[in-house]
C-alpha cells in the first residue's frame, strides 16, 4: 500500500528526514515512536503534503502512485487521512459544511454515489455518538472553542466519516485523559479492516495498550533505527530511547518488516 524508500526531507533548509524506509501493507497497523525532534511529525506532514515540507530525495509510492507529486487534496482523495497533532480552529466554517464538502469531494473523486442531505445527517450524527461528541457541535465552527480532547475526537470523527485507506495519526493520543484515549482507540479499532492501514505516531506506549500494532518502529535523527513487534513498545517504555541511540550497530542493520 505505502512504500517509502530512502526519504529525505528538509524544513527551512534543515534536513530532518535522512533516508527513511518503511513499507506498510494493507490491513497493517504500524506504530512509529521516537524522541522529540526525531522527525515523526515531519514524516506525517511530508506524507500529507504540507507546504514547506519538501522531500529532497527518495520515493513515496502509495498504491502504485507517486505520492510526492500529488496535491494535498488529491492525496486525501486517493485515501490518505492525517489526524492532526494540532487541529486548526476555523471559525465561520461550520463542522457540518466542512464535513459535507469534504465527503462530497472524496465521493465525487472516488466515483461513489453522493449522500442525500438526510443520509449525510444520519451518518454525521451516528459518528458523533461513536466518539462521544454532542451532535450540537456539528453546527459550530470547525474546532472552534473545542478543548484539546474534543479536537482529537473530532479528528477521529472525521476519519470515521471519510473512511480512508491509510490513516496517519500524528500524536492523536497526546494530551488525552484516559476516557478520551479509549474513545480514540475504539475509533481506530472500529475502522481496522484487512484493506485499511494505520500509522500511529506516538510518544507513549499508552495508546498501544488499546490498539495492538503489528509493527513498532523507532525513529531517531531522521531514520528508523529499530523495528519490531508490539513487544518493542513495552521495551521502549521501560528503557527509554537512549539505549537505542547509543547503539549504532542497530541503525546499521535495521530489522526488515
Amino acid at each position, binding site marked *: 500500500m505505502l512504500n517509502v524508500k530512502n526519504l529525505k526531507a528538509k524544513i527551512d533548509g534543515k534536513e530532518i528526514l535522512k533516508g527513511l524506509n518503511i513499507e506498510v501493507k494493507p490491513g497493517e497497523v504500524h506504530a512509529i515512536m521516537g524522541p522529540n525532534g526525531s522527525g515523526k511529525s515531519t514524516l506525517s506532514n511530508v506524507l500529507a503534503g504540507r507546504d514547506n515540507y519538501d522531500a529532497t530525495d527518495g520515493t513515496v509510492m502509495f498504491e502504485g502512485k507517486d505520492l510526492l507529486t500529488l496535491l494535498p*487534496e488529491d492525496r486525501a482523495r486517493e485515501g490518505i487521512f492525517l489526524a492532526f497533532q494540532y487541529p*486548526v480552529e476555523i471559525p*465561520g466554517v461550520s463542522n457540518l459544511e466542512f464535513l459535507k464538502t469534504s465527503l462530497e469531494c472524496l465521493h465525487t473523486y472516488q466515483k461513489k454515489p453522493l449522500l442525500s442531505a438526510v443520509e449525510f445527517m444520519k451518518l454525521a450524527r451516528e459518528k458523533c455518538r461513536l466518539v462521544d461528541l454532542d451532535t450540537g457541535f456539528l453546527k459550530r465552527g470547525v474546532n472552534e472553542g473545542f478543548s484539546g480532547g474534543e479536537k482529537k475526537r473530532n479528528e477521529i470523527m472525521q476519519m470515521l466519516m471519510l473512511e480512508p485507506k491509510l490513516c496517519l495519526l500524528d500524536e492523536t493520543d497526546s494530551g488525552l485523559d484516559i476516557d478520551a484515549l479509549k474513545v480514540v482507540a475504539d475509533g481506530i479499532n472500529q475502522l481496522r479492516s484487512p484493506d485499511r492501514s494505520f500509522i500511529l505516531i506516538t510518544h507513549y506506549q499508552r495508546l498501544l495498550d488499546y490498539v495492538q500494532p503489528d509493527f513498532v518502529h523507532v525513529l531517531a535523527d531522521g531514520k528508523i533505527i529499530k523495528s519490531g513487534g508490539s513487544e518493542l513498545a513495552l521495551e521502549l517504555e521501560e528503557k527509554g530511547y537512549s539505549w537505542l541511540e547509543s547503539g549504532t550497530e542497530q541503525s546499521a542493520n535495521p530489522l526488515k518488516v
Partner: protein
Amino acid sequence: MNNLQQITTDFSNEHTSQKNLWLQGIRDAASERLKALQLPTQKTEDWKYLKLEELLADEQLDVQSMQVRNSKSDDDIDELLSQSLIKDLNAYRLVFVNGVFVNGLSHLDSNPYSTLFSEANTAQQQLIVDHLDTSHNYYHDYFSSLNSAQLEDGLLIHIPEHCEVDKPFYIVNLTQGDQPKTNMMRLLIIAETGSKATIIEHEDAPLKHTSMVNTVIECFVNDKAHITHSRLQLDESVTSICNHRVKQGHHSTYQQHQISLASKLKRNDLTVSLQGEYASNDIRGSFYGRHQQTIDNHICMQHIAPNCSSNEVFRGLVDDQANAVFNGRIHIHPNAQKTLAELSNKNLLLSSTATINTKPELEIYADDVRCSHGATVGQINSEALFYLQSRGIPRVEAKRLLSLAFIAEIVEQLPHNSVREFVTQRSSSLLSSLHHEGER
C-alpha cells in the same frame, strides 16, 4: 474638463426644473453651493486613494432625474424582478428600475408610511423641505450637492410617533439595460419619536448592465426611535456614489448592516451625528472587490451628545487587482463625555496584487471617553487552508470557504432569515468563481 464638470456648469447656468416647484429652494441652494465646488481630486484628503477623474472619464453623466411610471410593469421587468428579488420576504416593497419608480410593482397604496415627493400633500411637502439637506454639514460635498441641485423627485418614508411598523420596507433599485445617463436617487427617512421600523435596501443589476447612480439618503432617527437598516449593494456593474447621513435623537438606536460588492467605482459615505444623549449606533459591514474593481468606504461617526455609544465592524475581502479603501473616523466633540466608541476593520487580501488602504481615525475633544479602533490586513491562514485540503477539498474551494467564513460574522447578523439566506447564497456563488492562475 471632465464630463461631470461640464454637466455641472451647464446645469447651474441653464437648468430650471418645472417639476415640483416647491423644491426649487432646495435646488437653488444646492446650485449655489456647487458654484464653489469641483470634482474632488486626490489632493482632497477624503478622496486621496481614488483616481476619480480617470474612473469617471467614460461615464456619460447626463442626468436622469427620478421618475415615476404608473403603468403596470412590462414582461422583461417582471422577469428581471423574479430573478433578483429576495424570496419570502413579507414587506412593503418599493421598486425602482433605472431610477424610475415602478408603481405597479410597488406597495405604495397599502403602505401609509411612504410617498413620492411628487405625490406629497402639503403637510408632507413641508416636512420634506424642513428636513432635506439639514442632516449634515454638506457644504464640501460635491456629489450630494449635485443630487440636490437636480432634485425633482424622491421617496419619503415617514413613521409617525410611537408607531411600530408591522413589516419591513423593501426598497429595490434595479439596473436594466446599459444606461447612458446618471440616475439620481433620493431617499428621506423620518422616524418620529418612539417609532420603530426596518428598512432593507437592495441594489442589483442581474444582467450586468452598466449605469451610474448618485444617491443621497437621509435618516432622521428622532428621540427613542429605533431603525434597522440593511443595505445590500449587489450590483457589480453599476458605478455608484452614495451619501448617507444619519441624525439621531436621545435614546434612539440605529443599526445598519451593509453588504457591498465593488464595481468600477463604488463610493459609500456614511455620516452619523449622535445628537441626543444615550443614542446608540451599530454598523456592520462587509465588502468584496475583485478584478479591477474599486470600493471606497468612508464612515464618520460624530459624537456630539454625551453618553452615546457607537460600534463599527467592517470586514473586507479584496482579490485580483481590486482596490479597496476603508476610512473610519470617530469624532468626539467636547461635550460628548462618557462616550463609548469602537471601530474595527479587518481585511483579507486574496491575491498579491490586490490593494487595501485602511485608515481608522480618532479625533477626541472630551476627556472622559472610552474609544478603541483597530485595523488589520492579512492573508488566508495557510494552516486552515492545508487542513481543508488534507480533507480532500481543492485549494480553490478551500479558499472560498475561508473567505465566506471571514465575512460570516457580518452576514449572520443580518436581520430576517430570508435576507440572510439570500446574501449567503449570493456571496457563496460569487466566491466560487475565485481562481488564481499560476498558483499551484
